């Protein structure tokens, strides 16, 4: 089974590293032109573009924008549209993780988490759905988290933001189906990225005991599932939340 995304245009938010980078690379290798994105202050964006260009032959366009704001999301979609005259795929990956016990989470941190993890999904979906609707076709994949389904002590605000992404996915799938737009979510479990780099060896050992597959996931594990969901192989799949967690929720 070979996914073919030739001539399609994808936007992957938060794609300078980790799952976003792996996803952008995977989509490019499948033939898509990819708009990669990170916040304005991320120097890794240009490096990420070069790294993907080194292995893929499609166009890679780096665009710095804060998609946690409506203006940033609109600017990103507008740049993508003006560059390629179409957008077929959106992967809402941008997000951040902050841990703190309940009662110790500052309002600024709550706001930052909600804007980055949930606001970005709302903003980007609003901006891109009109462009996709023109062609009566498009597909959106939102990155939620196993924490949005199960919750985790110490990740009160993060879990809430990721649960919100699931609600947004389900509502958007219903509302946008008539416009030919599919909307799904992927819920990674424990994936080894810089975002989980703070986990201690003891914590990691404990986590691994809860994973039936017996190993941590990789960004490539998640990217492969996203690539399937945006492909024509999933053309009748919408409104689903697909776990990529080695069986943690089995």
């Amino acid at each position, binding site marked *: 089974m070979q996914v073919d995304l030739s001539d399609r245009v994808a936007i992957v938010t938060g794609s300078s590293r980790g799952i976003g980078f792996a996803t952008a690379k995977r989509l490019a290798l499948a033939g898509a032109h990819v708009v990669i994105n990170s916040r304005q202050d991320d120097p890794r964006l240009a490096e990420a573009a070069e790294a993907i260009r080194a292995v893929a032959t499609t166009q890679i366009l780096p665009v710095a924008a804060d998609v946690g704001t409506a*203006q940033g999301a*609109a600017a990103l979609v*507008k740049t993508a549209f003006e560059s390629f005259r179409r957008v077929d795929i959106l992967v809402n990956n941008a997000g951040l993780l902050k841990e703190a016990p309940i009662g110790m989470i500052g309002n600024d941190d709550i706001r930052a988490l909600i804007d980055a993890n949930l606001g970005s999904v709302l903003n980007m979906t609003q901006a891109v759905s*009109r462009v996709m609707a023109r062609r009566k076709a498009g597909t959106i994949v939102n990155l939620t988290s196993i924490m949005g389904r199960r919750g985790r002590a110490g990740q009160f605000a993060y879990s809430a933001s990721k649960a919100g992404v699931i609600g947004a996915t389900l509502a958007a799938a219903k509302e946008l189906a008539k416009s030919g737009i599919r909307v799904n979510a992927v819920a990674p479990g424990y994936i080894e990225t810089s975002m989980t780099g703070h986990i201690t060896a003891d914590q990691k050992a404990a986590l691994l005991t809860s994973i039936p597959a017996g190993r941590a996931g990789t960004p490539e594990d998640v990217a492969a599932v996203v690539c399937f969901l945006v492909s024509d192989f999933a053309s009748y799949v919408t409104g689903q939340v697909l776990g990529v967690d080695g069986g943690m929720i089995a």
Partner: protein
Amino acid sequence: MDLEARVLKVFKEVLEIKGDVDPSTLKYNETANWASLAHITLVAALESEFDIMLEPDDILAMSNYAEAIRIIRKAANAS
């Protein structure tokens, strides 16, 4: 077809207006069929007709036909 005629054509198609209409009477939440969901359809149709992308503030400000003409003209001139 000039810009105003193209805008009116889109309005009539999206809002399912049969026959002649006085464009100055077209107002959001007052004209039949022009409510929130139809507004997004209208915006998408206008963007498609003129091959433009509107700003979020402009979408919210497009509350009547005259505003639509002003916003579309501004966006079309900028593209």
